[in-house]
Each structure stands twice: as structure tokens, then as C-alpha cells.
């Protein structure tokens, strides 16, 4: 079966600050990041849509002990953001000193840009991720 939206296409779009997802024609649920079936009803009839990239921080952490080859990035903030369209997405947060982040940021509105993880010897190439900033 063909993919409506592959990782490759999603990743390339994210590098252009475009967040793509899939909208199920059966149940209306939006699935982001993409899967081969709807994240709610497992239906296969879905349209590719572009999301706003705006949402609200649900939770966060500041990583002080990073994985191998990501030492230069630490400390960095990871956020889970609920997009206005419903899905949650994982990204990083800019605009605040990582070691100053507290639970106060939970619930704050954010908008999406992107940053690219260049990849390491295990990762099969690069991977973009949302880089959020405050205000939306």
C-alpha cells in the first residue's frame, strides 16, 4: 500500500517550516506525525493537510545529560505541544534560558519554526523537528 505521507516528505516539508499531517475522511481525526493509517480509527482514506504549527505547551523537560554526539546542544528544552488542530508533537523550545524553565511555561502559547538534527552514524540521515517560540 502506498503512503499518503512518508517520513521523507514530512521531513522535507518541516525543513520549510511547513507542518504536514493527515486528515481522515472517515472520522475527521488529524494524525501527526504521519502513519499509514488514521491514528484514531485505522482508516486508510486520508488527505494530506498543512497544520498551523500553533499550539500550547503541555509539558517539558530540560535535558542536562545528552546522548552521545549531542553534547554541544545541552542543556536544551524538549516540549510536548498540543497543536490547535488537536495532535501532540515533540520539539524544542527557544526564547528562554534552558536552566530557567519551570512549570510556569506549561499552558503557554507557542508557534513553530524548525531545527535540523544533522544525524549521527545510527540515524539514517537527518531529521527536522519543530523549534517552538513563545507567542501565537
Amino acid at each position: 500500500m502506498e503512503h499518503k505521507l512518508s517520513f521523507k516528505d514530512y521531513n522535507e516539508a518541516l525543513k520549510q517550516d511547513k507542518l504536514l499531517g493527515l486528515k481522515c475522511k472517515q472520522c475527521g481525526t488529524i494524525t501527526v506525525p504521519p502513519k499509514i493509517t488514521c491514528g484514531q480509527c485505522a482508516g486508510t482514506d486520508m488527505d494530506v493537510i498543512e497544520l498551523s504549527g500553533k499550539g500550547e505547551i503541555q509539558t517539558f523537560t530540560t535535558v542536562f545529560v545528552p546522548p552521545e554526539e549531542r553534547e554541544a546542544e545541552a542543556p536544551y528544552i524538549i516540549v510536548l505541544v498540543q497543536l490547535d488542530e488537536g495532535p501532540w508533537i515533540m520539539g524544542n523550545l527557544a526564547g528562554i534560558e534552558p536552566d530557567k524553565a519551570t512549570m510556569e511555561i506549561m499552558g503557554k502559547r507557542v508557534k513553530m519554526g524548525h531545527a535540523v538534527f544533522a544525524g549521527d552514524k545510527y540515524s539514517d540521515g537527518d531529521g527536522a523537528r519543530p523549534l517552538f517560540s513563545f507567542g501565537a
Partner: protein
Amino acid sequence: MRKVAVIGVGMTKFSGKQDKTCVELFGEAAMDAINEANLKPKDIQALFVGNVLGDFSEGQGQPQAFAADYIGAFNVPANKYENACASASAAARDAFMWVASGFYDVVLAGGTETAAKMGTPLATRTFAMGSDSRYEYPAGITFPGVFAMLTHLYAKKHGIPLEKLKRQMAQVSVNSHYYGALNPKAHFQKEITMDKVLDGFMVCQPLQLLDCCPFSDGASAIVLASEEKAKKLTDKPVYVVGIGQASAGNLLSQKDYLPRLRSRELSAKQAYDMAGLSPKDIDVCELHDCFSIATIIALEGLGFFEFGKASEAVERGETKIGGKIPVNPSGGLKSKGHPIGATGTAQVYDIVKQLRGECGERQVEGAKTGMTDTLGGDGGTIVNLILKRGW
């Protein structure tokens, strides 16, 4: 299905970096389990082995085949299970099925890992492979990072001030080390104080060093046999009366449930239903305390406490021996250690020892029914086993 019993258990001491290979460690645990079962290696009909990172830590693929040969179970079928930190429990569950089905009478399940060998940077990288490599890892996710985010979610959802929750979480680690100090097989045999937990360096906000389990090396193994065989070989068979397993996608796909882990709730229900038991029937539980908050989340997901109430229960001592549900009297992953591919059957090892009454100062008196809970990744796999004294 036939009844299946655990008739022998073995585990190495869990530790930091070992000079031994993962196959050698497995051999030690396996031979102890086989000897305890009054069997010989030739009696083992198949191996089910958890191992996650042998290829990264030692350049060793398919250790299960070499392990079978190493212990003298020549040419028997040997399969590896990779379910992140729940690998050995997944192996044990499948081993159970093969015996319950009648296909085999005696099999060996277990696991082995040399995670400490890798050092923190590579171990952190390879453990993160249990998250979604495409949609989570680019943001720099690590396992402490996952549970750090769940901590903030838990605090907010239940309206518990973070400072208060952190002290309750610290108590989880203090309890683990209290029991670990009494366990000669534990990685850390040293008590710690709440102040020490709260003074530790920050790993992933708000989790500090002693909120986190260590990277450990070690192995564990159990012999499973049909009821008929078990009765001939031992006076103290421990029956596997309930099994459960469930999966889940990445953290994002679990958004409707977090900080609850739906895979655990589904898995535990399967195990309780199969056993015809409920949480109140469990006398002792070895659960997956990879991080202090993970214990609190597990205590609720397994049904021992209401959602939002487990952290207070820990504070009141309800998870210690003598409390409502004694949890991790082995020291748990935090203090006994966490060689990820071996952890699940090491939990079974400890429950079997408890049911046999062999745990000395950390014995739960009169324990008849015990439970294990093993989590892989950020909920990607959860396995639960319920074990019952057969005499």
C-alpha cells in the same frame, strides 16, 4: 492450556562494568536456574533470551544461540527478544505460551545485558533508540527526558506542587536503597537519604541523579516446566497464573492518556483476568521503577492506588513491607540495578524467592501471590506476570 510453573531461578549479581561477556553472564544465571531445578542442560528444550544492546556493547549479535551452546543445551531453538527494558519479560511470556500449549515441557527464559560497559554517552544514545527515531529523537529525547516530562504532567494533572511531589519521589528512591542494601545481588548496597536525592545533579529537569536507575551489567534466568514435570522435580513449584502484554506507539500517540500508560492498564487487566485476581490479592510486587516517578505511575496503573494518590501512599509507607502493597523489596531497578535485557526475569527471580520465603530480612511474611511489571521504552511494551505459590 496446561499449567506452567517456575521450577528454578538464577541471577548474577547486578553491577557496573563487568569483565565478563553477556554470554558468560547469561551462562552463570542459566546454570544456577537449571541446577536449582534439578535438571541438566540437555533437558532444556528451547531458550527465550532478552537482550537489547549486545551488538553495541560487545559487537555481539544473536547471543541467544551462543548462550544455548555455552551452557550445553546443544542445538536447541534459541530466540532473542528485544522489547527494550521489558525484553526478558516478553521472553518469559512467550516461553510460558510454548509450555502451556503443550509443545515443550521444559524451557529456559531469561535475559542478559552489559549496558554499563558502554559508558553513559553511548548508553544514553542507545537507550534512546527505544523512542521513535524519526519523530522523537531529533528533538534530543532521552529516557530520563520522557519521565521528566511525565513528572511535570503528573504534578499539573493532580494539582500536586512540584516541590512536594519531588520529596515523595525521593522517598521512592530512599525505599529502594533501603531494600537494596539488604540484597547481596544488588548493584548498589547502600542506603541513601532524602537530602542526598534532592542534592543530586540534574539529569533532566526535574529528575536528579538518584531519581534515576543506573546502567547495569547482569543476567537472569528461569526454568519453566509443565505442571506434570514440575511436580516430579520440585516440592515448591511457583505457578504462572496470569500473563499480560500490550504495546503502544510513540509518546505523541499516547496523548489522550498521559501521564497514565494505557499499555500497562491493558496488560495488567489481562493478567488479573486470567488469574481471576484483583490488585488486593497481590502480596508483593516487583515493578518497573526506572525513575522515581515511574513507580508512582505504575502503582496507579496496576490498580494498587487511585490515580493521583500513589505519591501520598509512598510517603505514608504503604509501599514498604508491612504496608498495603510491598513494592520492590529487592531494591528494584533503582538499587538492585537495571541490565535492561535481564530485568524482567530478575523480577521473576525475586518474586519466586519471596513466595518461597527465602528473602531473609527483606521477606514479605507469608507472601503467596506476587506480580511483576516491566515497561519497555515510553510504554511501547508492558508485560505483567502474576505468580502463585504451588504448595
